[in-house]
């Protein structure tokens, strides 16, 4: 009985250690995933605010607008190149007040 219970206890301890390890790994993986998610969102936000993603957004909107089932009111426009878009964007942005004192 004693040997059995010792063995059972040892098995239980080993199993608990394994489970703890697995739980710990799962916890770490979750933390890692969470951090990656936060970093990804921050990077996305930074690209949007800095204007890096402006041309991608413009192209994405262009393809959506040309789909009549999504947007029936808009006329599809011919896409302009990244360089033309960049210069046009700057011209519009800097021809009105866009900075405060």
């Amino acid at each position, binding site marked *: 009985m004693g040997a059995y219970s010792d063995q059972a206890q040892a098995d239980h301890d080993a199993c608990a250690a394994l489970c703890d390890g697995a739980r710990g790994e799962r916890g770490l993986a979750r933390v890692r995933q969470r951090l990656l998610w936060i970093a990804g969102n921050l990077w996305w936000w930074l690209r949007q605010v800095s204007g890096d993603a402006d041309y991608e957004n413009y192209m994405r909107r262009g393809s959506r607008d040309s789909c009549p089932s999504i947007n029936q009111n808009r006329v599809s*426009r011919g896409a302009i190149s990244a*360089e033309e*878009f*960049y210069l046009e964007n*700057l011209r519009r942005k800097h021809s009105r007040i*866009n*900075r*405060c*004192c």
Partner: protein
Amino acid sequence: MNLAKKLLWFLIAAVGAGGLGFIAIARGEPINAVWLVAAAACVYTIGYRFYSRFVAYRVLELDDQRATPAERLEDGRDFVPANKWVLFGHHFAAIAGPGPLVGPILAAQFGYLPGTLWIVLGGVLGGGVQDFVVLFCSVRRDGKSLGQMAKDEISGVAGFAALFAVLSIVTIIIAVVGLVVVNALKSSPWGFFTIAMTIPIAFLMGIYMRYIRVGHAIEASLLGFVLVMASVVGGRYISESHALAPYFTYSAIGLAWMIVLYGFACSVLPVWLLLAPRGALSTFVKLGTIFLLAGGILAARPTLLMPPLTRFVDGTGPIFAGKIFPFCFITIACGALSGFHSLISSGTTPKMLSKEGQARLVAYGSMMMESFVALMAMVAACVLKPGIYFAVNSPAGVVGQVPAQAVATISSWGFPVTTQDMSDLASKVGEVTLFNRTGGAPSLAVGMAHIFSGSLGSSVVMGIWYHFAIMFEALFILTILDAGTRVGRFLLQDLLGHFWKPLGRTGWYPGIIFTSGIVVAAWGYFLFQGVMDPLGGINSLWPLFGISNQLLAAVALCLCTTVLIKMEKSRYVLVTLGPLLWLVAATMTASVQKIWDPNPALGFLAHARYLADQLVAGSIPVSKIAETQTLIFNDRLDAAVTFAFASLVLVILIESGRNWWLYASGKKRVGLREAPVELSRLTA
């Protein structure tokens, strides 16, 4: 709201009230800056959670089911629905200029208490509300500008006042920020080298974003940041080199000419070459440094050495003359309540708002952040020994030309400082002298360097931190200068195009050069006026800026009040009428005092009379007669400009008041000019 949430809000309220109470009753012994930061953070949190919610849902009745202009008029260019956090970033980056840093530094001459209370309460009850309600008005009117809305909802006079205020505010703000840069860089080879290097760095970034990696602002900004940091570090070697230092050492007049030429070049050069890359770099450095400063204050937990109230509450301040009321409220605008913000709230932001409810986060939330930045600037000024603060900021015309004379004057005010203190500090930060650097930037830089070196390094690197702070301030001051000159040029071209069509064409080079020249000459005149002023220039220019800024705020708040009355929300009219009345009281009192006060240190006309009497008495040396005559003319010009601003405030107020009375008495039909209602199809 469940019990746990109630307890949490109760705790925040208790910490805020405790912090404010401690600040208010602490007398005679220095307090830790963390008290200020904690109290302010709690007030902002409560203001955002409760007051802005009240304004949003009780007063304005924001409706997320109603399509915004970004959705209805979406064109992929101007009208684009944006994520609320992205728009928050855009809006905050647009409203956060040098104003919330410089204003609190100057107002610290009254002590830390008046400025801090105005920043916190003004932000929560005034600035946040103004920005929020103007954004709401613009969203309900297809993203119209402040001037258009004032014309439609109040009258043509109000629309004209808005246009006049915009042109004058652009002129005066450029002159005043130019003066801040001049005073920070004069006789400073290290500072000048660092700032001068930002121009070729911007060219490089511009070429990178135009030809190598089109539109990749993050990469270009990182490249620019590394190069700018290299020039901050390299500047030390320039300043220590006997051979090179003279090439980078300039007087105030020389620097003023360079700034004028720079402004002109920015207005006529292609925008991708200089303006856009500088703007991108400045935004990155600005946001990064603001977070760094917040972290530095929390890590260093510095003690405020400035008393809560100084003797200068009586109006005899050396940096600018005038009592707490009205001058504290004119000096600190952008951190508490700034009319300029209404141009941003009725500019790009309303065209990108996806849902009406998001206006609360974007406008009110950004203003809370801006107010917090102003509070950090106040902390940075007040951690300095008061004697040092006054030695750095007081003009030579007030404290004396010679260091010994200056420290004797300042010490006699009860703020002990020695020439040894000042020369030790100057050598620590790598400058020859820090005396008479009126304008706020150098004392903010010393304060920031003190905080950074206390938390992120030793005093050995204080010089690097000081010049990093100068670079940070000058970078986005010059961004205002170049962007402002260009916008001023567009406004002028728009106006002159009515008289002669070619002048209105933005691609016609003779027209560009002519109108750029006029705009630069206008602000350049005021810049030189400030540089030549024996009282430091800030004494006359900053109040002018404050008054013109609050003229714009008066237009904005009159519009907000009119719209509330038209919406049949008269019972909530104090939400905007309260800040308006306070603002008008402060602006009108300041205007009257600046024009007619008999004290020559305060009143423009009294100062002109004082100089004229000296001329008549023959006490001015022959070599100074022409300069004195110019000073007399400048005083009279400033008085006339102030009079024009004050008159416009009165005209707008009377015009609005007349309309309110007619609406209330039923003698005029209420016509709300909102865009038609359309149901939103966007998901939040």
